[in-house]
Each structure stands twice: as C-alpha cells, then as structure tokens.
C-alpha cells in the first residue's frame, strides 16, 4: 500500500498512479464524535489543493473537508449516505470519502507523513 499523507486540517490522502483516495484521519473522526451526515462532492468537480471538497456533520459540529491534493472527483463513497458511522469505525480505510483523478504527487510535499502528523497531533 502506498504511503498515507495528512493535512493540518486532518484529512488523509493516498496516491496510486494518478488517482488519490481521500478521507479524514482517525483523530478527526474521534474528535468529531458520532458522525451523522457526510455531504459528498459531485463527481466531476475539480478542486485545487486545500479547497473545500466535502462537508461533514457530527453530533458536535459541522465542518468542511478540504482537498489534500488538486484533482477531479472521479468517485465518491456512496455507502456513507446510509452508513456515515463507517467513518467513525474505519476513518482511514473503509470510511474513505472521495477519489480524485489527475493528481500530481509533487503536491504531497505540502503535506505531512504519518510520523510528522503524529508529532503534529502531540503539539495540539
């Protein structure tokens, strides 16, 4: 499996070829508490790195999800419409939010590795 990178806003991304899979970190899912709704993006939507990609609501708060890398939305995790709790159960795997096409791995240099992200979490 390719390496996972993180944003300061607690999104994760894994790039495989020109496709990126995006979600929120386990830390973010835990902090949000029980997630009740995920506003998935439209496929075909083009976003720049750190643009708003999707929305997420929990019993505590409503927040934006930002695109960790630039690209065009090629798939969304439709299953989350009926089962948003999957993000709580498996934020960094089955709870992925969207896939982006046409991404540039060079943008990963603006993100954190898992080790760097773990350090960042300690600083919060």
């Amino acid at each position: 499996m390719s390496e996972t990178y993180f944003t300061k806003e607690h999104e994760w991304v894994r790039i495989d070829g020109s496709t990126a899979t995006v979600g929120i970190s386990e830390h973010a899912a835990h902090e949000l508490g029980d997630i009740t709704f995920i506003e998935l993006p439209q496929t075909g939507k083009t976003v720049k790195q750190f643009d708003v990609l999707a929305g997420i609501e929990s019993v505590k708060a409503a927040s934006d999800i930002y695109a960790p890398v630039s690209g065009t939305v090629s798939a969304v995790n439709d299953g989350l419409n009926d089962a948003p709790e999957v993000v709580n159960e498996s934020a960094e795997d089955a709870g992925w939010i969207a896939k982006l096409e046409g991404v540039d791995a060079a943008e990963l240099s603006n993100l954190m590795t898992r080790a760097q992200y773990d350090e960042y979490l300690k600083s919060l």
Partner: protein
Amino acid sequence: MELIFEKSVTGRRGVRLPASDVPRAAALPANLLHSAPVGLPEVAELDLVRHFTNLSRRNFSVDTNFYPLGSCTMKYNVKALENAAGLFAGVHPMLPLLPGGETHAQGALEMLFELGGLLSEITGMDEVTTQPLAGAHGEMTGVMIIAAYHRARGNKKRYVVVPDSSHGTNPASAAMAGYEIITIPSDTSGDMDLELFRQAMTDEVAAVMMTCPNTLGLFNPHIKEICDIAHAHDALCYYDGANLNAIMGKVRPGDVGFDVIHLNLHKTFGTPHGGGGPGSGPVGVKEALIPYLPVPRIVKTSEVDFGIETDRPLSIGRTANFFGNFGVMVKAYAYITMLGRAGLIQVSEQAVLNANYIMARLKGYYDLPFEQTCMHECVFSASRQLKHGVHAIDIAKFLIDRGFHPPTVYFPLNVKEAIMIEPTETESKSTMDAFIDVMIEAAGQAGHNPQALLDAPLTMPVSRLDETKAAREQHVCCVDY
C-alpha cells in the same frame, strides 16, 4: 405524553356552532377541495387546555429556569412588551402599501422610522432597515448590500474574510451571496491573528466579517486597525451585532469604522426567541450604502408625516413580506424607550459584570483557555474533567437535574470541550450563586464519582437521549396521513 392527534375522538368538538340561518354559499370547484379529510385533531376544549398546559409544564424556558445559553442572550423578556405589541394588532400589514393607505398607518410607520433612528444612534450607523426576519437573514441582507455596492463601483471582488471564531452563519451568509471564504485562525489571546489577516487581505476581498466581542466573549482591541487595513483594500467591514448586549452605550461599531451591522432584536432588545420568537435582524449601514438598502424604505415626508419609498433603483429589493416581523419591532421599540440611554448602558454593564462574576468564581474548578476579563459571556473547557472520563455534555445533563438550562457546549469550535456561559443582566446574584454551586459540585463529582455525571439526567421525563440516532434516522412527522 400523548400527542394531540392521539387524543382525537371522531366527532368530538370544542365549540359547536348553531345551525346556519343564512343561505349556503356556492360550493368551491372540486379541484380546490381536499380529496381526503385533513386529519385535524377532534378534541373538547378541556382536552385542548390540559394538553397545552401540560406541554408547557414540560418546557424549560427563561420563564421557568436560569438559562445561561452562551451566544444566545437568553435574557428575561418583560411581559409589558407583549401588551405594547398588542396595541398594533389591528393594523393590517398591507395597509401602507395600498394607494392612500399610508394615511391610515401613520403610527405604525412612525414607530418603524423611530426604531430605525434609535438603532442607528446605538450602533453609530446612518440608516437602519428593520426588514430582515432574523440574525442570519440580516447577515445575508448585509452581504448582499456589500455585493451591490462593489458591483455598482465596478469592483472585482471574490472573497470574504472571517475569523475562525466567527458565528458559523457568517461564512454561510457570505457563501450564499456568492463569495468564497477565507478563514483566519485565532492567535494565542483568542483574537483573529492580525499578521495572517494582513497577509490574506488583497484587493479581491469584498468584506471582513467580525463578531465583537467574539464567541469567546473577548473584545478584540485591534478592531480599529482591522477596519483600516480592510478599507485600504476597498473592502467593507461587517459587524455581527449578535453580541451587542456587551457594548451598548460603550462602543458604537459605526464610530470604529464598521460599514454594515446586523442586530438581533430577539437577543439584545428583550424580545422572545427560540420557540417563542420570531426573530428580527435589522441591518444598519453607513451613508455610502444607503442606496442599496431593501425597499420599501420608511421615510419622513413632513414634520409630522411618514411614508414609504419603493422607487430606489440601486436597492437590493425586498427581503421580507410587508415590513418584516413587525410585532417584534414594537416590543424592541418599547424596550429601548422604556430603558432609555442610561438603562441600556446599565444593561451592558450588568451583563458584563455578571459574566465576569461567574468566570471569577468558577475558574478554580474549570480550565479557562483564554484567561482575561471577558465581556458578556465566558468560555470554559471541561478538559480537566475529561481526564476522569467526564465530557462537557455530561456536566450539561447534570445541570438539567439541578434545575438549570445547560450553557452552550462544544461551541466555539476552537475550544476543546467548550462550556460557554452567558448569564445576561437579568439574573440576580443569588440565582447565579446557586448555578455556580452546582457547577462546582459537578466539578467535584467528576473527580470522585464520575458515574453521577454520566448517568444524568435522572429527574426528567426522559433520560439521556440518543442524539446520534436522532440525527441519523430522522422521523419528524408525528402522524401519517
């Protein structure tokens, strides 16, 4: 408790009318008639009175309990204001809009004109529209006025800047009006980071929206500088007046450099809100923005006459039916004139004093992330209690058992396990002391017997609700027709 629909018995009536002794009117065309009964409850008057009386006894309100819900300014609403609103009950809202109708609605128009003047005086603005129906509607109206201003000047603007501690409605209103949002993080003192703000400001920024005091209850000492920086880029400054209760008669946003403000009459000016609403969100502007205000505009046509003006080509148009929530405005007008200048200043002083009293007495027991003199509300964190497995929500539920409405929890978002307390000016010291004692008791329980908090509430008709299930599986219709 049974629903009123479940109490329905076919054929039961509260009132029986005598047989008609006038000719029946012709029946309506069939296509205008319901095809099936509409399913209204059929009950006797006594059933109805008991139902709603019992419902009201389950209600937790300012009239029954202390309600220190931060960011909401749940002050007591003086009952005399209800009588004032009743004085206008006979005026049809359409009247001033009919040809010649203004003559017959002079009192109502004069009240609207005077209220606009009073709110302008309080905020330091040049004109106020009372049309918007609530705070967020006022924000939307304000941002649309800003957008109309930039369009008329040929300005190319894309962004609205908001601090991360702003009310969530600020970025939402700006986005609804077509702008992209730039969010500026708070610095260590809880204010918008001035350096990051400076970096974000370009000529493409249409406006900066500030809530001051902010949602941490802190007054930003740099607001003048922020306005100056924004104006240098021909960006306008928007003041979210939801927290005006802290500053009346002390600071006028218009004097500082703000160009647009909205107010919440249902917070600051003593009119009911929440279920008791409706709200009212007047918007005040500086002179350069007056042409863009909504129509109809209330004007003084002579020394003693008032009228309406609708032909205003630059206006953003109508934002509400008729003149907005008129009854709320009557109450606010009565509130302002009843208290007068000295009274309104005392409101703010007392509101700030009360919040600081609670902060001072509780800061030994709860973490205070931003320790400085607060304004009308104070924000604690339950992070100390979290070490024992107790969350802010558990403390909130414990308070319910002891007869207090919980403070706002989990807001603002930039404080972990936030507990946001706004006592308002209408509470006595003894009420606040009773609340403080229970908060101290809750902090003690967290250390010694956390289960007591995790089990609360025990005295209510229902115990801990499954908020997740309620949000995930919404079933909001009580009867299937």
